[in-house]
């Protein structure tokens, strides 16, 4: 079996906020193969965006720190790379689209300009025809007009498509999509995500899909990783995790979200609230809220270990001795 395209090993990321140290990502391990879509799903503040930024080393130097771990992209450790080779990979082999297309685009350059600039930096030339065909590829109506337009002159949905064009301009092997449709209306979401699926197939691109939307992740990803308080609590094939979640957090979360056709009545809740990442409780981070908490949970952090074809980080499935931490 081929090596995974992206392999994150025991990554931890800290950053400083208001004088406190926030452990945003704690000992996270993930793998992503060529051409597949891996979803990283979790609530706001669980560290998923920090994880995405860490892969591209886009975290602010001064306030953030990577105390441990490796990020292998095509067997090269990105964390050990120098600035120049890293710059070539970013926007070239690994591309990103963010939640807010407005702040991701340079307001003083036209869309066409920004696309051509990216292509130029990564070795291609400034090719107008190629740029226009890119704009067509992301289903932008009237590509000529968009080419000449400034970001504020086009709509939100069009901006996100332009960002997508920018991202795929250099045929990346990996696309990191951080909440790409959260700021868009639901009807637009479907279009953009369908587009993304199509592009993935055509370009044989892998996608790291970061979102808090369980529904989207259930439809659009092959495999997924559930994050809570900076840790991966469950990982596996999307279909498996969604139909039979192993980790109590995943199970409780899925049960608690409202459905269209459920009968009116009380929703099963998860008591308490997500922890402050600068003061995560000892042991398993979910234990204060877990309906199935028992003795080892408060003391020992469970390791992410295989179980029934997936990986889950919970003492219910592995004895604390096996956790070895």
């Amino acid at each position: 079996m081929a090596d995974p395209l992206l392999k994150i090993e025991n990554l931890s990321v800290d950053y400083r906020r208001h004088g406190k140290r926030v452990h945003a990502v704690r000992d996270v391990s993930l793998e992503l193969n060529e051409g597949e879509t891996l979803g990283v799903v979790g609530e706001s503040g669980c560290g998923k965006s920090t994880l995405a930024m860490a892969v591209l080393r886009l975290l602010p130097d001064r306030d953030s720190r990577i105390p441990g771990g490796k990020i292998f992209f095509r067997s090269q450790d990105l964390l050990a790379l120098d600035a120049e080779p890293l710059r070539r990979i970013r926007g070239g082999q690994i591309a990103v689209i963010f939640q807010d297309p407005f702040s991701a685009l340079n307001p003083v350059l036209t869309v066409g300009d920004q696309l051509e600039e990216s292509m130029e930096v990564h070795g291609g030339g400034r090719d107008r025809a190629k740029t226009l065909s890119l704009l067509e590829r992301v289903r932008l109506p009237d590509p000529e007009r968009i080419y000449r337009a400034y970001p504020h002159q086009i709509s939100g949905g069009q901006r996100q498509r332009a960002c997508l064009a920018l991202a795929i301009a250099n045929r990346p092997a990996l696309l990191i999509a951080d909440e790409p449709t959260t700021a868009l209306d639901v009807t637009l979401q479907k279009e953009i995500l369908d587009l993304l699926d199509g592009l993935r197939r055509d370009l044989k691109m892998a996608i790291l899909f970061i979102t808090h939307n369980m529904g989207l992740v259930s439809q659009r990803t092959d495999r997924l990783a559930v994050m809570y308080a900076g840790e991966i609590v469950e990982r596996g094939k999307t279909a498996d995790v969604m139909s039979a979640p192993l980790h109590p957090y995943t199970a409780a979360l899925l049960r608690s979200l409202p459905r269209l056709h459920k009968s009116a009545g009380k929703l099963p809740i998860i008591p308490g609230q997500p922890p402050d990442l600068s003061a995560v409780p000892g042991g398993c981070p979910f234990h204060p809220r877990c309906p199935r908490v028992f003795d080892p949970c408060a003391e020992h952090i469970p390791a992410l270990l295989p179980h029934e074809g997936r990986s889950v980080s919970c003492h219910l499935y592995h004895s604390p001795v096996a956790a070895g931490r």
Partner: protein
Amino acid sequence: MWSLTLQRFRKNKLALAGSAILALLVLLALLAPVLVAMDPLQQDVVQRLRPPSWSHWMGTDDLGRDVFSRVLFGTRISLVVGIVAVGLALLIGTSAGLVAGFYGGWVDTLFMRLIDVLLCFPAIFLILMVIAFLEPNILNVVVIIGLTSWMGLARLVRGECLSLRERDFMSAARALHLSTPRLLFVHLLPNVASPVLVAATLGVGGAILTESALSFLGLGVQPPTASWGNILAVGKDYIHIAWWLSLFPGLAILVTVLAFNLLGEGLRDVLDPRMD
């Protein structure tokens, strides 16, 4: 909430430096009568224009008065004028800004165009003209400086109010049918306090400089009362033979304005820390 602010204040070097110097100045100003060995008004013509010595730390002026005592008493004038004038500007400016920013519409337009017009007059000329008609004394100086420096604060407050007005906590307050004074003073004002406080602190330095300029021109504090400005005025005539008459009051102005600026900059960091 205040304890968090206090904590940040203690850690901020600028704010600490500024407030330390200011504390010293205030102490000197308060204890002036005790600290001086000589009466600042005492003339001694035999001792006129003496350079600094052990008996006169900062030398004597053209009438034999001890410069150190005069500079020390001048501290009182500068601090009082600076703080009270800015206090007046704060009062007028904040009220104008709150009303303009809260009501918007033609009220806002009226105030802003008025401020635009007032800002067209060079403050110094305005002040000179007014003082020329009125009697030059401390009260008039304070009032006129206050009346010519409220515009910047008003604009600042108005800008903040215009953006705060649309926030949901203001909508929630309006939905409770709270009275307008309550909306302005309990809800809006505390939220504009931080940037205004910073601007005001930085403005004290300017007020002190203006007072010194006025006294230097003979239109501010009148001798025999000591003000750094009027000591400088004497100094300019004797600059070649009595450098101490210009140096010491000049240094005093420098240190005081610097202290307020440091404090203001420090406050800005403390009250509005940059988010990551």
